[in-house]
Structure formats: structure tokens, C-alpha cells
């Protein structure tokens, strides 16, 4: 990453921690979207973010690679340590951050270009010198799409089905081998079969990547997440501010929650 990034080494962090995110306050204009949430993200694990609508879980995710910088009047208090450097540190280029922390979106969003060019996009962006075809094949294999598209790499990415498009987007994201993959409800626009495939893929991908996953589907969290963070909405101030209620191993959060709020949400008393 850029040499100008500040060197903050979180002292007590375990060695396996890839990101240490202390989100004190996130604002959109005057609206406080998220407060007081501390989310550590461990290497080669899937960290699931669950919670009711409007609890800020997507906002949290998009803050981790500074995607929210694109939103006008976005303001962030806190820090996001990535391998010891603050993503929000002085002189940090958000463009560089996003090359290390990739993103997969809710709606499959392939570019209006061929399957090959979609996957090669990030490699070309980084002026990759090696064998482009090799890396594209590798990425498509990594996203379990290779067998379906190997004979039609020149076909537009938009011609694929929804589930294939999403796996194409995953291939595109992993082609540049980022450290972390942020996935914002990647299955919410997919049918159950496509969802299952992407879930299997996520479990496969965590061998090489660290994944942060926002999901509206609690069952998905229990199926794939190693660690689960439960967010809720605080409406006591007359506003709707999301915050982290509790976070821990998925099994513990779902079966032995520390907080009553978590138990209520998981048992379906509100959503």
C-alpha cells in the first residue's frame, strides 16, 4: 500500500487480525448512521454482519474500503486499521485502499463488455504484466464459473444469468487477489440454487481471502459465517442510528447470545 499510510500498529491485536475497525461515528450530513461499533476482522474467516433493515450494516461494510467517500457529506470518526495502517489515515489514497479491499455488490453489476474483459478489468487497471489469460482463467475457476463460460469468454457479461453474473463479479473481484473481500448481500438478488452456489464459493474462497459479508438472511450467516456481528437500530434519540450489539463466533451469537436483543432478533421477534 502507499508508503504515506500511517504506521499504526494496534498493540494488542492478535496476529490473525487483518482489519481492526473502530467505527465511533458515521454521518451522512447531519444524520448519524452508525455509532460505537468495534469490528475486528480475522484472516481467512468469514465475518457476517446481520441485523434489521436500516441498522447500518451496509454502511459499515462500505466504510471499510472507503466506498462511502463517494457519498456526498459522508463523515467518519474512528479508524479502520488494515494490516496495521489506518485506511482513513492522512495521505491515504482511497483508490489504493480499494485495490487491497475489494467489493462484491448486492446487484450483480458486470461491465458492458466481454466476460474476459470483465475479469481482466482490474488486472489491466493495475497494468498487470504477466499472462492475462492465465489469471482470468484462474479467477474464473476460483469463482466456479470457468466450466460454464470457458467456450464463450468473448460473450458480453450481461448475457449471463443472474447467478452467473454474480460469480463473474466475484471472479472480477478476486482476479487482482485483494486481501479482503467485502460482500454486500451478494445473494439477495439470486434464486435459491444460485445462492447455494455462491455460499459454497464463499466457503471455498476463505482459504485464500478474508471475507466480510453483509446478509439479511440469518440462515446464510449460520451456514457460512465463522464470526457474526449483530447490529441493531437505536431510535431513542428520535433518529435511526445503527450500532453493534454483539459480536462473536457464529455458534455463540446464535445459540448463546449475551444480549436479549440478539435473542429476540434471532428468534424472529423483530426484523
Amino acid at each position: 500500500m502507499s508508503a504515506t499510510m500511517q504506521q499504526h500498529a494496534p498493540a494488542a491485536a492478535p496476529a490473525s487480525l487483518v482489519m481492526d475497525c473502530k467505527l465511533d461515528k458515521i454521518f451522512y450530513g447531519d444524520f448519524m448512521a452508525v455509532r460505537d461499533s468495534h469490528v475486528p476482522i480475522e484472516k481467512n474467516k468469514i465475518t457476517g454482519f446481520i441485523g434489521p433493515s436500516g441498522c447500518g450494516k451496509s454502511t459499515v461494510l462500505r466504510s471499510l474500503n472507503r466506498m462511502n467517500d463517494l457519498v456526498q457529506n459522508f463523515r467518519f470518526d474512528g479508524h479502520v486499521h488494515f494490516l496495521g495502517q489506518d485506511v482513513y489515515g492522512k495521505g491515504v489514497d482511497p483508490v489504493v485502499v480499494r485495490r487491497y479491499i475489494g467489493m462484491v455488490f448486492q446487484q450483480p453489476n458486470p461491465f458492458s463488455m466481454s466476460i474476459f474483459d470483465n475479469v481482466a478489468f482490474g488486472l489491466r487497471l493495475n497494468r498487470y504484466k504477466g499472462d492475462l489469460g492465465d489469471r482470468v482463467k484462474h479467477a474464473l475457476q476460483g469463482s466456479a464459473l470457468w466450466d460454464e463460460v470457458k467456450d464463450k469468454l468473448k460473450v458480453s457479461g450481461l448475457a449471463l444469468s443472474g447467478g452467473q453474473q454474480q460469480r463473474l463479479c466475484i471472479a472480477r473481484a478476486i482476479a487482482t487477489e485483494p486481501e479482503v473481500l467485502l460482500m454486500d448481500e451478494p445473494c439477495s438478488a439470486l434464486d435459491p440454487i444460485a445462492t447455494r452456489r455462491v455460499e459454497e464459493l464463499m466457503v471455498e474462497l476463505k482459504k485464500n481471502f478474508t471475507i466480510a459479508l453483509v446478509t439479511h438472511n440469518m440462515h446464510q450467516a449460520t451456514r457460512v459465517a465463522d464470526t457474526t456481528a449483530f447490529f441493531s437500530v437505536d431510535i431513542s434519540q428520535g433518529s435511526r442510528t445503527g450500532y453493534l450489539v454483539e459480536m462473536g463466533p457464529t455458534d455463540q451469537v446464535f445459540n448463546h447470545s449475551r444480549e436479549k436483543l440478539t435473542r429476540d432478533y434471532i428468534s424472529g421477534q423483530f426484523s
Partner: protein
Amino acid sequence: MSAVNLAHPANALNTPLPATPSLQHQIEGRALRSILLTSLAWVSALLASVPLFSVLYMLITRGGTRLNLEVFTELPPAGFELGGGFGNALVGTFVMVGIAAAIAIPVGIMAAVFLAELGPYSRLAALARFAAKTLTGLPSILAGVFAYAMVVLTTGTYSAPAGGVALAVLMLPIVVLTAEEAMKMVPKIMKDAAYGMGSTHTQVILKVVLPTAMPAILTGVMLAVARAAGETAPLLFTALFSNYWIYDAGHVAAMSPTASLAVLIYNFSGMPFDNQLELAWAASLVLVLIVLVVNIVSRIFGKPRI
């Protein structure tokens, strides 16, 4: 068996539905109104296509007879001369539309990038958008007057570049507005994807927004080209006319009056000579065919890919 009257729901509610309702079409007020309006729309659509096809018909019957290789290679005839053609006018039209495109397309697309991507809500964007919209309604003769003042007066001569500038003024707003609209159609999630991969703003525009919007931008460009090719009034003030080739014996007459199809038609159609009148018809047919081809090409390239 009494038919249900669905035209008056109140009545229909008051009288119980018959056990075996008639579901056949019924001639009553509502149906008649529908038939009337539908036929009116049909007739209007038919009327709208009448001018194009009657013009085409006239041009083909009147101009088609004179259309041969000679008219493309010969210079315009003088008074009582027979034969001749409008080769120099065809070349002049291509040259001037080319100059106009070379000015209006890059400037127009760059301006559209600013309007759609860089500062869509800025005051400058609002101003430029307003200016472009007003300019689309500008009488074309004023574009000619503008170019006359800007180029003809300063260079001291009627010329192809002056004509090109006048046509560029007419093309620019069409290019700007259609290109802006095309870029706005690029889905935000597609741009997000590019940002999410670590693209800079410039890379997002160059590698995602422009390529994705390109078919629609091309449509606008082609429409602008087609419009410019047929303009007469602005050229009367700027390029005037010439009976000679713009390129002759190794010499390019860049800064001298230049012929164009539109002005040739204007000049010849008022002449009392049959030969010139025939050539005016033939030139009109060629001009319309050029415009038609450009439009068809834009339809082929303009297929949306989003």
C-alpha cells in the same frame, strides 16, 4: 337473456348479474370512443410518415433519372451548358461536415463528461445545459451569421473552415445533450463496481462510462452529422459557393469559397435552365440518401448494450 351493461357500473351493481352473461363485444359509447381514438392515432401516424415518403418518391422520380456517374465527377455547368454535375459540392459538403464534426464531437463529448460525471450539480453545468438547450432551437441562419462574424470577417474570405464552424455550432448542442443523456443512463452500480476495484474517477469515466454509453453517444453524433449535412442557410454566409474543386492540381483552396450540396440545390433550383433544375433534383436525392444512410448507420451502431 339480458346483456350486462358494464358501461354503467352503478346499474350493473343494482341489477343482479345474469346467470349466463354475454361476454361478446357490445357496441356502446365507451367502445365507440375507443375505436374513434384508436383510428385517429392510426391516421395521424400514417400522416406523419407521408412527408418523408412523398419527398422520397418525388426525388426518386425527378432526380433519379439524372443520377449517373457523371454528376459525381463533373463540375457544375454554367448558364446554357449541358451535362455537368456537382462533384465539387459533394466534396465540399463532406469537407465542411468533417470540419464541423472534428470540432463539435470532441468538445461536445468532453462537455457532456463534465455535465454527467464531473460537476452535474454545479452552476457551470446548469449554465452549459441551458445554453445547449437554447442552442438546439437556434435558427440555423444565426449560426451562419455568427460564423460570418467570427471567421469570414477575421480571415477576410468565405471558406470551408468558416462553413465548418457554422455547422459545428449547430452540431454541438445535439452532441452535448445526447451524450450527457447517454452517460446518465450508465447504471450507478456499474460505476460502483469500477470504483470498488480501485479505479480513479478518470478511469471510471474512460473505461466504464464512455464505452458503455458509446452506442447511444454515436446515435447523437450521427443525428448531428445528418442535420449539419442538410443545412443551407449557415453556409450561404460562410462558405458561399464555388464552381471549382476545393483540391485542384495539387493545390488546396482552403481559404476560398467552397461549394456544398445544399447551396447548390438552393442556387440551381431557382435557375431557368432545365439542366440545372435536373441537377438540383439529383443533388437533393443524393443529399437525402446521405442523411438516410447516416441515420441507418446510427441505428445499427446505436443498439443499446446496457
